[in-house]
């Protein structure tokens, strides 16, 4: 079994499970209760919040959410619904939770424009600057793309936005623990995170929000999380998330180096298969992301056939693998429908070993050959 879909989700690591354990049935209080079990739970939540803020070097509020999707929805809708209708800029390769949120806002009368990317998936900060209008209230560009792994120049973009007086949000779900996320360098007003991408539990995430940013909550109620996100806090989840952040940040330098090497081996191995090319940026790329197009054959078949052989990869993002349209990201970087459909993502992680890479290359070569034999596009 070779799991190469760490960008879709990760197993919870043992240290995190251990950290969560006491909060299921021992320290199980509701953090809003003022009695002892309540205050113990409250303390655990606040310590987790402080620890994460420290590790991302953020000065502001960290609002715990149920995941990356909620964090992104809260950022975009929270800003827009608290203001008069205006203009929003999002890149054309955002995760579906940004794309669909933007689409909904646009159906509600907001003006939305999509920032184009080049053939590597890069956003040009100059283009962002040009596209900002007088009525622009928010720009959202992800830190790195979840499909093709391209890392965006968010430091520069954040500077432009702050000069222009426009709010800037970035989705760091795929970068935390993989490349440096330092909010002293990225001057973003809001930043989204998700726990289950970094060996933390599913169902937890966070939105960093600078002190002076006004948001309408998506979840109204008891007023938890600075009044920005009501609902009984997922205490074990939050504690686990914070542990996962701590470990991910600590291990980053060494682990990123290790993954980068394996990634490059996998890329060279796969590119030896004929009619195969790399998607995304050759250098400005997540250390664990490999995304290739095997021409003339279709991605879902490749994924399923690899799965039959114990190699687990994905087409596009996990979210869209039940949809039929080709990935909007691959279309945005200029792939035609057929090549977009033929692209496959391999994402490496903590438990990936060199042997896995060798074996994957071997199995891929087999599967690609088998599928090409029945493709009408090959001679």
């Amino acid at each position, binding site marked *: 079994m070779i799991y190469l879909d760490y960008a879709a989700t990760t197993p919870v690591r043992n240290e995190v499970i251990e950290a969560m354990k006491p909060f299921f049935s021992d320290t199980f209080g509701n953090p809003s209760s003022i009695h002892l079990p309540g205050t113990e739970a409250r303390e655990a939540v606040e310590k987790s919040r402080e620890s994460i803020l420290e590790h991302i070097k953020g000065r502001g509020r960290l609002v715990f959410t149920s995941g990356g999707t909620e964090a992104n929805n809260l950022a975009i809708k929270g800003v827009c619904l608290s203001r008069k209708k205006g203009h929003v800029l999002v890149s054309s390769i955002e995760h579906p939770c940004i794309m669909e949120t933007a689409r909904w806002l646009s159906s509600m009368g907001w003006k939305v424009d999509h920032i184009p990317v080049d053939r590597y998936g890069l956003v040009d900060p100059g283009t962002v600057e040009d596209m900002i209008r007088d009525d622009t209230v928010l720009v959202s560009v992800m830190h790195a793309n979840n499909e093709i792994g391209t890392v965006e120049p968010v430091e520069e973009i954040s500077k432009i936005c702050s000069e222009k007086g426009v709010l800037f949000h970035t989705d760091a779900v795929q970068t935390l623990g993989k490349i440096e996320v330092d909010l002293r360098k990225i001057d973003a007003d809001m930043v989204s995170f998700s726990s289950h991408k970094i060996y933390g539990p599913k169902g937890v995430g966070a939105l960093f929000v600078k002190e002076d940013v006004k948001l309408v909550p998506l979840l109204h109620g008891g007023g938890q999380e600075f009044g920005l996100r009501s609902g009984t806090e997922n205490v074990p989840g939050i504690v686990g998330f914070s542990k996962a952040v701590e470990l991910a940040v600590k291990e980053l330098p060494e682990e990123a180096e290790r993954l980068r090497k394996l990634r490059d081996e996998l890329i060279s191995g796969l590119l030896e298969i004929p009619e195969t090319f790399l998607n995304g940026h050759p250098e400005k790329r997540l250390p664990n992301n490999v995304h290739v197009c095997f021409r*003339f*054959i*279709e991605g*879902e*078949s490749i994924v399923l056939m690899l799965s039959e052989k114990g190699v687990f990869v994905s087409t596009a993002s996990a979210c869209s693998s039940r949809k039929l*349209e080709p990935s909007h990201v691959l279309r945005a970087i200029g792939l035609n429908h*057929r090549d977009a459909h033929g692209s496959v993502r391999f994402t490496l992680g903590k438990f990936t070993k060199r042997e896995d890479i060798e074996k994957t290359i071997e199995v891929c070569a087999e599967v690609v050959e088998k599928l090409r*034999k029945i493709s*009408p596009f090959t001679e």
Partner: protein
Amino acid sequence: MYSEKVMEHFRNPRNQGKMENPDGTGVAGNPLCGDVMKFYIKVRNGTIVEAKWETFGCAAAIATSSALSEMVKGKTLEEALEIKREDVSSFLGGLPPIKEHCSNLAVDALRKAIKNYRERVKE
């Protein structure tokens, strides 16, 4: 997601590949979801004696191609023309709803192949 029968045809597709000197060929495709199928038939006395296919597409597309290529063998052209998409998917124990429409194109490709055969015969 897929029935065992779909997976079985996906794993071990029947009659796949190009046919030398076919009597009729037909291509069907759905540009959006990307599936494209090519069907080849050999006909003797109004009966399909051999069917082959090539498919670019998901597991459902491959399995429906494979299934249909088995279903048509030995059928007269008239009988083959009566096969509907639903027949193929029920032969396979059903397809996921989202795939039903988009990836079940084999029947279209077969019909085009029969049409192509009839046109050739007329000439």
